[in-house]
């Protein structure tokens, strides 16, 4: 790591997680626990499980724990619903000292009874929090008994915060989803061109854009995991011929599990940027090996590209030569963003993720130019130092990174829950270019 320049304080234990690209790859250290005492941008198991499951619109999402875990996750996901709004409520057992001492099982059972009676949901998801993992409430038993009483599905989510990382929360969520899916009846042959779409949470309506593309290609979208999904649609997930996975970080595990149990093949796709969107649609069409679908797919790509290219080129004129820094949750999104920035004439000079995996970092190293700093689980001080050192004009990140960028006089685009425009597909590529353009070219930076 001698390529780190002088004047930058990086604690010894962190050095293996930061690398400046120079020719060959070096195997960045990642998928490790954070160092105690670091200002990590990472979250917990509960957070991972909650973000994956929260978009299920007609479920009661009951957080079993003290109030905070429910308060901080109340309707912040930004995932849109075309129907039910129940998922936008915040339900908590609000555990108190007494419950910690005597156990929270009775209170939980009681809360479930009262909520089911009032809202009559088809599904209740009960999230475990740190404290529940410690006091040892048997969520499985409480949920099972309650399910029997009410005749609906009530499932525990094993998401005690300390029991791993956010990625482990994704797995806990996928385990719940696997329990929800019903086996196909009599293992009939797969129906026609029907797919599931995994790892899109319908932020700002993104899944709706993709669903429209698929429809125009003559492909039926069975269910989206989990954007704008409902109990009954999720149940039918085994009836698809293919799973396409957008966010592999959160849903790759589910894709593998469904292949193992139901024999449904999966493919990783990305609908971020024109290039990846077109490639992904072709990949899906190619799977079905059907002339009509291929034809429609090519028509769609041609038509949409024709529509959006001039707009993107317009923005590109103003953005050419700018430099971007990226710090996002997973490696998958980071990879797509590199390509998407290239489409608008921007080089990525710093890139990092909270929970990227080895193979994702290898891909990233292959995509970025020499001199780009790649880092895992960065803290704000590192982000600041490398963004300044690298001369970035713009940062792409989430809620905690925004004010940091602004303080440094850098433009910012939210690529997380706080995004306000869909960033998927061709329409999303234009939105992305516009958002980058609007922030980079804002007059406010002149007043610094």
């Amino acid at each position, binding site marked *: 790591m001698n390529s780190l320049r002088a004047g930058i304080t990086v604690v010894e234990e962190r050095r293996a997680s930061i690398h400046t690209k120079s020719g060959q790859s070096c195997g960045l250290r990642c998928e490790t626990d954070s160092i*105690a*005492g670091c200002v990590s941008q990472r*979250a917990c198991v509960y957070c991972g499980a909650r973000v994956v499951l929260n978009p299920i619109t007609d479920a009661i999402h009951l957080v079993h724990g003290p*109030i*905070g875990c429910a308060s*901080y996750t109340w309707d912040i996901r930004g995932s849109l619903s075309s129907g039910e709004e129940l998922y936008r409520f915040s339900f908590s057992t609000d555990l108190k000292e007494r419950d910690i001492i005597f156990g929270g099982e009775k209170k939980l059972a009681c809360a479930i009874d009262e909520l089911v009676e009032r809202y009559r949901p088809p599904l209740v998801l009960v999230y475990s929090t*740190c*404290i529940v993992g410690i006091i040892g409430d048997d969520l499985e038993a409480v949920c099972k008994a309650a399910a029997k009483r009410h005749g609906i599905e009530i499932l525990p989510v094993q998401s005690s915060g300390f029991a791993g990382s956010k990625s482990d929360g994704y797995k806990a969520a996928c385990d719940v989803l696997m329990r929800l899916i019903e086996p196909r009846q009599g293992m009939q042959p797969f129906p026609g061109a029907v797919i599931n779409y995994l790892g899109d949470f319908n932020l700002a309506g993104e899944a709706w854009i993709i669903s429209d593309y698929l429809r125009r290609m003559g492909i039926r979208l069975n269910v989206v995991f989990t954007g704008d999904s409902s109990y009954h649609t999720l149940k039918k997930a085994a009836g698809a011929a293919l799973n396409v996975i957008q966010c592999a970080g959160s849903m790759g595990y589910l894709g593998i599990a469904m292949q193992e149990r139901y024999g449904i093949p999966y493919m990783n796709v990305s609908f971020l940027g024109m290039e990846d969107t077109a490639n992904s649609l072709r990949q899906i069409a190619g799977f079905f090996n059907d002339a009509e679908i291929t034809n429609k797919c090519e028509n769609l790509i041609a038509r949409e590209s024709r529509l959006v290219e001039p707009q993107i080129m317009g923005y590109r004129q103003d953005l050419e030569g700018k430099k971007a820094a990226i710090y996002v949750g997973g490696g998958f999104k980071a990879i797509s963003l590199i390509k998407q920035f290239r489409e608008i004439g921007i080089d990525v000079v710093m890139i990092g993720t909270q929970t990227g995996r080895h193979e994702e970092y290898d891909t990233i190293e292959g995509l970025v130019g020499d001199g780009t700093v790649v880092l895992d689980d960065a803290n704000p001080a590192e982000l*600041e130092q490398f963004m300044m050192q690298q001369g970035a004009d713009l940062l792409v990140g989430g*809620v905690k990174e925004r004010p940091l960028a602004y303080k440094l006089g850098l433009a910012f685009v939210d690529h997380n829950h706080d995004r306000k425009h869909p960033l998927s597909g061709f329409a999303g590529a234009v939105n992305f270019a516009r958002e980058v353009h609007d922030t980079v070219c804002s007059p406010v930076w002149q007043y610094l």
Partner: protein
Amino acid sequence: MLDCTTDKIYERSAGVINPAKTCQPIGAMYAALGIHKCLPHSHGSQGCCSYHRSHLTRHFREPVMASTSSFTEGASVFGGGANLKAAIKNVFTIYDPDIMAIHTTCLSETIGDDIPTLIKGAEIPPGKVVIHANTPSYQGSHITGFSNMTRAMVVYLAEANLDKKAERVNIIPGFVNPSDMREIKRLVSLMGISNIMFPDTSGVMDAPMTGQYAMYPSGGTTISELQASGDSCLTVALGAYASGDAAYQLERKCRVPAVVLKTPVGINATDDFILTLRSSFAREVPYALEEERGQLVDIMTDLHHQFHGKRVAIFGDPDIVIALTEMTISLGMRPLHVLTGTPSGTIGGPQGIFEKEIAGMMNQAGIKGRVKAGGDLFELHQWIKREPVDLIMGTTYGKYICRAEDIPLVRVGFPILDRGVHSYLPIVGYRGAMRLVEMIANALLDRADRDARDEDFELVM
């Protein structure tokens, strides 16, 4: 949306629907940010720290720095001692704060980590300070956490060194925005009284944009000021829930007399604050303040017909809500539903003051209203369904009820996640009251304009 809420009041024995509070650690983190060059530290899982930072960032739109012990399964089984020791070492090596303020979480509290002993056994560089507060998330609310961390500042740092107390007031502002802390300091300065405010997030959570990022902005109470607080001759705690405990602790520890007042929101509470300073320090109220007060009264008079008899629901943190209730009554409004998520009795905190004070104000004003501590927004919504109001005052979370019932919302308190600027402009003092009067009047009049039939639509209102 929210159409599953009915006016039928259900007896609920377990659980909260749509909370009007959050947990202790975030309050402790916010309080700690009010110490100069302090890094708050969350002793628990990474998620807690991440959520608190995100939530504070969404409200203040500022970077919020805090470190975490990053508990894993191992730490949860064998205790978090090793994590905390490593954390203390790393924090001072990497981030070099003057002081590290540790708060616990439900996890570390339940495991039973003995923080004072762990601090004693840790390597702390010379000249650096580590303090801690116990903030179990299953007790009280974020306000309790704020109060506990503020008290910890006294417990760890306040010293009584002088034989005769200094002619100086300690101000404990409570869980308010940096703009409010700034305004309170301005009022005290106008009175010509030297003061130590703690915690003080002005200059930290409303730091100006300079193109440079300062991990520790220029604001915040310094360690030496916190030490000197034990030599001041008076402590004025603003808000019984967020500030009272620390003031009484200082009284016990350093014999600094404590006065607990309402958060100075509205004319009455601001008068009380100014008069307390006047009588305690034998100072004249300067003309500048008289003028501000006179302007406020002028504005209240000019607009009083817009307020009179208007029904309002108020929710949020107890200290702010108590003061807002008083203020709306002073404008001739009728606060019918008043609710806080913070339970009224917590260990070390005031017992039952919330309901008592507000019921007293309602009684005196001849208002038959409802008041509850430890309630949630589902309940508030049911109350509003049974007895509608013209206005809701509270945090951003009120917007769901406002949308469902088509009621305007005046955003006050914490958190405000969907608007900006609130942390730069005060609601306390006479000027803050003018701003609130404007916000309330505009909300009511915008609604009147929107709802007016053509023939009732007026230019002059």
